[in-house]
């Protein structure tokens, strides 16, 4: 028999065990009951993997809602490496469909990533083949791709978006926070090794599309500016150039064209330098185009009046330093209007010295020209002015006619707008409005102009500037039927702080019609060959852009233009018939066309010819092969490699030479319509 003490203790033990298990049952009930829901949520959260779904990027429209940048849907292929069963065999098969190296694909299929893109932006044929093959672990997802229907038109303003639809340049970058949208996601229930669970839970959170951004840009004004610029750059042999058309009342940019340009649909094929917007990002010595600001400062501060007289012996001496006027022998005795009309440096030195450094600087600061304009485009350069303390009288004298300082073309035109706007500053901008996908407007930062000139002074400066065009150095900027105020400029190109011999910037800035200006325009030609005076080569370009734009905008002429005046024939080749017609109308020419098709292949008379207004512009229409944004391959036969390269570059094409000597064969053949930036190969023998 067992002892009673032992049995008592065993009974005690039994009791303890039952109590312990009772406690554990209670604990289990708590964990699986009241507390269980929280734990279950935690467990679910760690199993759910979010695959981001890119939102469609917002559209960019011009002021009249013409699409400038849109998003189209394309298919992309992705792989979930954990679900791929036979990586080597699959990589080989995919390589055939996707035209990618099998080794690269194999590395992706065996990688550690939960999800990897194996081919972006498939052709419809590739997508169909892949859908049919349907290898395990490989899927197709729609992606948004950016498309720029206008090709290289306004390319540097629009910029472009990268492969993941992120804005990389231009408005695409500066307005990215509106255009981007909010990504949605697909939630997948997966195991700890990132593979789908059986009967997995799936949830779809849709993405929020980006906002629609409407620009102040007008596609047709942009077209006018681009075509005129291209023509002038070609005829003057310039390395490049810029045209900015602005509304002087609001600061809204109607057109901003640079040449050379690039096609944002194929931005990667152009050098990164072509993506820059030199009108905003480059500093230039303004030269004489700065003189209107000096003039305004002097008149506003009352140091001169319209009755003041000046004497130019051909130079002025400041603190023992002799500063020459551009005209040998000098302009002699002049009144203020003549100083301006003649762009007389000596006269402006006089104005600057009468003002003094402090007053001159205060005025420039109030005008805002010493700072960035704050334009809603990326990469704006900061103006460079000598430090006020270190400015000696001789520096002040030189600054008075626009040297030793550097500002952006846009900054210069913005400053001129304050004069055109009756003395109140404007802030330049390209974004006109932003709308949410549901049409709700997004509020944008507003700008209040500062009055920097009295109305009377602004009117007086304007009057003096009309003299430049009427009788002074800017006669070629005259637009038949409209009163134009403006100023010529010719500056030596500065590279690394040194003036370059024989390299010039020819420019013209101005506005029209006076006294109620609708457009302010800056034109700039970089390193023209031969003639380089702004009044000679920039002024005609200005006149063409202003004339065509005012006619396009329907601004009634102030007076009937004299019949003898001639107009410049616009370049209408390689653009659509509709665009060509509006350019012809803007130039004041009658339209006629031969043939069928929606594009203009050839024109008569040649672009740049001067003809009486109302003459007929004949367009030879071509088949739809020549689409908007296409260029024709130039004929290279017989050219030496350097000349052939220049021809190709002028047409906006990439070039490759094979052999040396003279061109004997080329691919593609002359006249073939291709996308800008396509490669042309020529064989030399």
């Amino acid at each position, binding site marked *: 028999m067992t002892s009673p003490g032992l049995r008592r203790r065993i009974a005690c033990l039994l009791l303890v065990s039952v109590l312990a298990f009772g406690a554990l049952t209670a*604990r289990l009930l708590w964990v699986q009951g009241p507390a*269980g829901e929280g*734990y279950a949520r935690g*467990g679910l959260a760690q199993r759910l993997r979010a695959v981001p779904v890119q939102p469609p990027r917002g559209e960019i429209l011009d002021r009249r809602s013409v699409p400038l940048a849109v998003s189209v849907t394309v298919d992309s292929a992705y792989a979930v490496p954990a679900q791929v069963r036979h990586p080597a065999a699959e990589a080989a098969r995919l390589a055939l469909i996707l035209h990618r190296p099998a080794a690269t694909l194999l590395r992706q299929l065996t990688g550690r990533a939960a999800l990897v893109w194996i081919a972006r932006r498939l052709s419809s044929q590739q997508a169909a083949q892949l859908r049919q093959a349907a290898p395990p672990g490989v899927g197709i997802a729609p992606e948004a791709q950016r498309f720029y229907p206008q090709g290289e038109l306004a390319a540097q303003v629009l910029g472009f978006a990268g492969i993941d639809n992120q804005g990389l340049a231009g408005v695409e970058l500066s307005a990215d926070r509106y255009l981007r949208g909010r990504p949605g996601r697909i939630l997948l229930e997966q195991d700890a090794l990132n593979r789908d*669970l059986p009967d997995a839970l799936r949830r779809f959170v849709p993405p929020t599309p980006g906002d629609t951004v409407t620009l102040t840009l007008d596609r047709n004004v942009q077209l006018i500016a681009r075509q005129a610029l291209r023509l002038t750059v070609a005829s003057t042999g310039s390395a490049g150039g810029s045209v900015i058309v602005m509304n002087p009342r609001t600061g809204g940019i109607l057109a901003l064209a640079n040449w050379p340009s690039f096609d944002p649909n194929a931005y990667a094929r152009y050098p990164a330098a072509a993506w820059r917007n030199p009108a905003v990002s480059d500093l230039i010595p303004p030269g004489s185009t700065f003189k209107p600001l000096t003039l305004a400062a002097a008149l506003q501060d009352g140091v001169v009046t319209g009755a003041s007289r000046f004497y130019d012996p051909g130079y002025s001496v400041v603190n023992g330093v002799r500063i020459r006027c551009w005209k040998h022998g000098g302009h002699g005795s002049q009144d203020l209007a003549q100083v301006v009309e003649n762009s007389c440096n000596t006269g402006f030195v006089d104005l600057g010295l009468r003002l003094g450094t402090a007053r001159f600087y205060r005025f420039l600061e109030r005008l805002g020209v010493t700072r960035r304009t704050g334009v809603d485009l990326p990469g704006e350069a900061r103006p460079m002015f000598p430090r006020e303390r270190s400015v000696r009288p001789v520096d002040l004298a030189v600054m008075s006619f626009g040297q030793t300082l550097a500002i952006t073309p846009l900054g210069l035109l913005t400053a001129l707008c304050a004069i055109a706007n009756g003395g109140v500053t404007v802030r330049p901008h390209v974004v006109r409005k932003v709308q949410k996908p549901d049409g709700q407007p997004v509020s944008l930062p507003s700008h209040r102009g500062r009055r920097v000139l009295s109305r009377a002074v602004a009117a007086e400066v304007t009057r003096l500037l009309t003299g430049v065009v009427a009788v002074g150095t800017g006669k070629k900027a005259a637009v038949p039927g409209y009163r134009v105020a403006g100023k010529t400029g010719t500056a030596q190109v500065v590279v690394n702080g040194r003036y370059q011999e024989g390299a010039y910037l020819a420019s013209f800035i101005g506005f029209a019609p006076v006294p109620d200006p609708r457009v302010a325009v800056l034109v700039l030609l970089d390193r023209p060959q031969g003639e380089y005076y702004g009044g000679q080569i920039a002024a005609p370009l200005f006149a063409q852009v202003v004339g065509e734009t005012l006619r396009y905008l329907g601004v009634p002429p102030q007076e009937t233009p004299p019949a003898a005046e001639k107009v410049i024939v616009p370049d209408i080749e390689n653009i659509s018939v509709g665009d060509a017609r509006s350019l012809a109308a803007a130039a004041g020419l009658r339209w006629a066309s031969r043939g069928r098709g929606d594009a203009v292949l050839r024109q008569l008379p040649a672009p740049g010819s001067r003809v009486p207004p109302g003459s007929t512009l004949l367009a030879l229409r071509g088949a739809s092969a020549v689409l908007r944004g296409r260029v024709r391959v130039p004929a290279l036969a017989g050219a030496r490699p350097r000349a052939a390269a220049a021809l190709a570059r002028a047409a906006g094409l990439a070039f490759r030479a094979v052999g040396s000597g003279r061109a004997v064969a080329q691919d593609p053949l002359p006249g073939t319509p291709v996308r800008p930036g396509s490669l042309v190969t020529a064989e030399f023998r």
Partner: protein
Amino acid sequence: MEARRGIPDLYLLLIVFSILGIGIVMVGSASSVDALAVYHNPYYFLERQIIWSVLGTAAMLFFSRVSYWRWQSIPWPLYIITVVLLAAVLVPHLGRAVNGSRRWLGFGPLTVQPSEFAKLSMILVFAATLTSWKVRDFWHGLVPHVLLLAAVGGLVILQPDLGTAAALAGTAAVMLFVAGARMKHLGLLGALSLPTVALLILKTPYRRERFFAFLDPWKHPHSSGYHIIQALYALGSGGLLGDGLGRSRLKYFYLPEQHTDFIFAILGEELGFIGGAAVIVLFVLLAIRGYRIALRAPDNFGALLATGLTTMVVLQAAINIGVVTGSLPITGIPLPFVSYGGSSLVFSMAGVGILLNISKHGLRGGG
């Protein structure tokens, strides 16, 4: 002491086979994902667990037929074998290490865990010595037992296998208590050993963190708290009724040890609180039948032996469930008859065999 042969406790048999059956099903479900990934055979662990169950049942039948008095006469050979095997594990080329612990002895394809053998053998040794020595005597009764336990427990700790050491110590303490050790002496022992254990745990920050992880597992969710968090996620996902057999989510590589030490979490996820509570009830019934056999044993040796065997199973079950529900610090103790593992299953079944043999000799009626 008369030996009356009777019918073994069939309720105990039924309870054990119920738990074993649930265990086989759960091992099959919990291990399938891991088995497919590692061995390309979802039934890898299930097949082995079935084989081990057959071997365990054979061992149980064998031990139920060996008269339990035989074990009273051989405590010293048993003790020496235990010590030798446990020491052999620590020898570099004999013992096999997994996850940094040397726990297995390999004989060709077969591996055994001497610590599982020690759990059984120490009960047999203690039952014999406690019957003959006066355990109420501090120096001549209690201290020699403590030394015997310390030697074996020390070897187990060296593996290191703190869970088994705790189970051994706990069972031994219960047997000393039941054998009549004075509470004063046990209290003194406890008071002496507690600071040592506390020092061992609290000395190193790593062990301290692990030990207290169960109080706030989210403090270190990716290290010391990970197991407990995953176990709680599993139990919480199961809720009261469970997600259904085979539908566990946590077994997809989230919960480690899903078919061994943490199998109860998968059971709770698939079968819910209902399933978990059923298993607990089965262990309570096992405790009742086991201690009933002890109460009805014909002699003190049988009673002590039955107490030890029952306590070992019940204690491990309680600690295991306590760990999985986040109520106790993590100790690597399997859930008897449920967790995957050959040695544990065979020796536990052998213990049940001995219990059945004792029950055959038990008193009938009121006892």
